């Protein structure tokens, strides 16, 4: 578990256009700059929002990353719920799911 390194990868990526170019052109090289587990590196290669959420990535960092990947809002919420269904509860941090997977907006229910 190297959540600090995982979050730092995303923190650097989210705020730095040069890092974003590197992410798209040579993701393995970028990943190797950080001390990540195979599970964490795999989640980054796949853009696996659900697993990253369960691993405990801060929700704000993850939300900005999802935006960078062009993921639509309600899809992003679904990906986190699917991550919990597949991998179990959030393992670290304060961005846990407390609502049982329910939707809290009419807009999402009506889509």
């Amino acid at each position: 578990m190297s959540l600090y390194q995982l979050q730092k990868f995303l923190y650097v990526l989210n705020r730095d256009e040069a890092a974003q170019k590197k992410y798209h052109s040579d993701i393995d090289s970028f990943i190797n700059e950080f001390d990540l587990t195979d599970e964490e590196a795999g989640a980054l290669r796949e853009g696996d929002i659900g697993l990253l959420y369960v691993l405990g990535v801060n929700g704000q960092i993850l939300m900005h990353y999802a935006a960078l990947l062009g993921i639509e809002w309600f899809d992003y919420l679904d990906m986190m719920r699917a991550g919990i269904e597949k991998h179990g509860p959030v393992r670290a941090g304060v961005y846990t799911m407390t609502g049982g997977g329910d939707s809290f907006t009419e807009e999402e229910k009506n889509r």
Partner: protein
Amino acid sequence: MSLVYAGALSHAPGITGRADLCENTVKRDEFLAALDRQRQDIEDSGAEALIVVAAEHFANFFMNNMPAYCIGIGDSYEGPIEDPEWLKIERTKVPGAPDLATRLTREIMHTVDVAYAEEWKFDHGIMVPLNFLTPNYDLPIIPVNINCQGPPLTPLHRAWAFGEALRRACDSVPEKVALVATGGVSHWPATPDSGKINEAWDRKFLGQLTGLEKEALLSYSDEETYAEAGQGGFEIRTYIAAAVAAGGQGHLQFYTAELPIFAVGVTVMKFDIAA
């Protein structure tokens, strides 16, 4: 007195980014009207600079070196760091106020060991408010951050002391300065529970804030806030700092829990400036 305006407002990214998804357009438009009144109040105050007390989301500060409090003294800033299409705010350059911000920082340091930064990238926590309050980006901005994201967080009594320091600093300069706090009351943003709001908790806290009820405001533990108001509730620190800086009666100009698509109890406030 050189603090000429003090207020608070929500900063959630959905306010701009998901405005087109919002089904309750009546309530949304009431909120937008309240924001426009706040913009007009700031303009009418004659403010020469705007301090934005924000709770950023890892745009600049990370757990490698996390300041509890930081103030921007740069010439200019850029934002948003987020995908502009996602936030629906174009990336732009925002003017700073380096000389004024440096003098404010010196005064604040007499009682609070605030960090300072000449580089600062704005995220939605500042860009959403500026989108409504200074839409032409023509008012110099002094960004201030209170760490509300990466625990351990500054205790509320220190946020109170920071508010006092901000006020003393504003009073020490000849320029007319406006101040807004941006943040949220109860909310569970960036989780599957996005849109969950504890209206009763919000109204209780906001009532205590308008009355500047020190004992009540400082009684919230992070554990209690997390349980009842979510991790987003940690941002009450910015609201407390602004209310203390103003020192007068607060006015809740707009509040609703009926816009959960914005993922926060949407709030617009103004505080009287005590002599």
